[in-house]
């Protein structure tokens, strides 16, 4: 495994994962994953489809329970929390889903209001409106406030999904395939948005992707998931450009050469 950048060792780890294992029947998806996410960094998790990247962040958010291992988020062991503590922790984590997961029966405004109204007490109507407008302005989609999710493009849905997570001002962002299914221009916009979110809100993020352009643009550090473990970690150059690893080379060539 390549070494983690030395500067990270000075920073506080907001997510610490040790010896994480999960299987679905006979399929051993994660086989002993160790990973740290440091304060203020964008960590890209790369890997082929079906290697357990999304499973990993669903375990971090407490949506799946691992068979073995520990996941500590902001110092709390996710597996040991009761449902109330888990809900409180989840408010510090923003989860951007691959499918955007906007509530189809609600307008954009209602989608953004939903987590706010349900989790923050004693908010006036003007406070809610202000928060919604700010979150939409953050992702550059103020004009869509009264539209239904079905009226939005794929890129707009992704942005609104990110705005909905930002409204609770999370400390950690988890992005599941943020550029999947988008054209190159929209992908670039989403990549820029991920970087802007980090700068404006000082978030620490895990970005799950198999898109190397996305990884290169947003990643401070890359962790490559191979055969259920993180075999390679480091900067983009360390993992791909200066690497002699055949699997990393193959992944790189399929993305950039073919």
């Amino acid at each position, binding site marked *: 495994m390549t070494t983690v950048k030395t500067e990270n060792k000075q920073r506080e780890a907001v997510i610490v994962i040790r010896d994480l294992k*999960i*299987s*679905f*029947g*006979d399929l051993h998806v994660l086989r002993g994953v160790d990973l740290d996410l440091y304060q203020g960094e964008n960590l890209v998790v790369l890997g082929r489809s079906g290697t357990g990247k999304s499973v990993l962040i*669903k375990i971090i*958010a407490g*949506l*799946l*329970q*691992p*068979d073995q291992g520990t996941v500590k988020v902001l110092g709390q062991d996710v597996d040991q929390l009761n*449902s109330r503590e888990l*809900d*409180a922790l*989840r*408010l510090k*984590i923003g*989860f951007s*889903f*691959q*499918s955007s*997961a*906007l*509530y*189809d*029966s609600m307008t954009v405004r209602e989608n953004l209001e*939903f*987590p706010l109204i*349900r*989790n923050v007490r004693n908010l006036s109507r003007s406070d809610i409106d202000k928060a919604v407008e700010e979150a939409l302005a953050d992702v550059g989609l103020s004009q869509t406030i009264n539209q239904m999710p079905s009226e939005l493009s794929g890129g707009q849905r992704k942005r609104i999904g990110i705005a*909905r*997570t930002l409204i*609770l001002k999370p400390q950690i962002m988890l992005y599941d395939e943020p550029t999947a299914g988008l054209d190159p221009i929209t992908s670039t916009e989403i990549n820029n948005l991920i970087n802007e979110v980090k700068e404006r809100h000082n978030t620490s993020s895990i970005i799950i992707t198999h898109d190397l352009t996305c990884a290169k643009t947003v990643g401070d550090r890359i962790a490559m998931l191979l055969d259920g473990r993180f075999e390679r970690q480091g900067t983009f150059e360390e993992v791909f450009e200066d690497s002699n690893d055949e699997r990393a080379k193959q992944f790189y060539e399929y993305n950039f050469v073919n």
Partner: protein
Amino acid sequence: MQASTTSSKNDTSAKPVVSRRLDRMFLALNDVASFVGQFFKEVFVPPYEGKEIIRQCYEVGVRSLPLISLTGFITGIVFTNQSRPSLATFGATSWLPSLISIALVRALAPLVTALIAAGRVGSNIGAELGSMRVTEQIEAMEVSGTNPFKFLVVTRVIATTFMIPVLAMFFVFLGVMGSYVNVAQNEKTSFMSFIETFFSSISFLDINSAVIKAIMFGFTIGMVGSYKGYNSSKGTEGVGKAANASVVTSMFLVFIEELLFLQIINAIRAA
């Protein structure tokens, strides 16, 4: 969650087919029992999601009114018209209001309302929750600090449990109106006389049992639709299957419950 509940494939493949089917059946029953158990665990614990319950009651009740009204009215007309020749043979057409009241209150209203609701409401709940499951909306709700079971399942089951008895009573009212239209054309009976005969033929037990039966049907339809939708998988195909299974299973259970309830009521009458 998923990982910890799956059993080894080698263990099950060595068992005979019957044994494996029994295993699957008991696992499915355990799943259903857990789901129903979770409903009763969540329903009495705050927050009570009052706004969402009202919204769901509107969806189930008000939006079903046109269909229930039409069906109830036509059932009243048709049932009266079809019953007349048999009663006329004995010169007993004056018994039509009694016959209609007993048929509507004891059997037709709760049963037909439940079957219509299974088709309209049950499939809607199955498809809506199924689509929310496959597009990760349920998980999105969970990570944003909202209990999706309480917000989506408990509210819908409460709405169907309360609104189907109301719809069944509305069905009775419209059925009576339909029946009177037919009787007035043929027998020249006054409306007051018709209504008086109608109410004198049914007992308190008839009304109570109809309401209890409709409550039971409503609970079943809400629970089945929610269970099928909430646990759907396999993408859009799974959504279609959840909607279909919600209707078929609800209708099947409604008939079974009707049969069991009939035996109980008969036993009470005989006692």
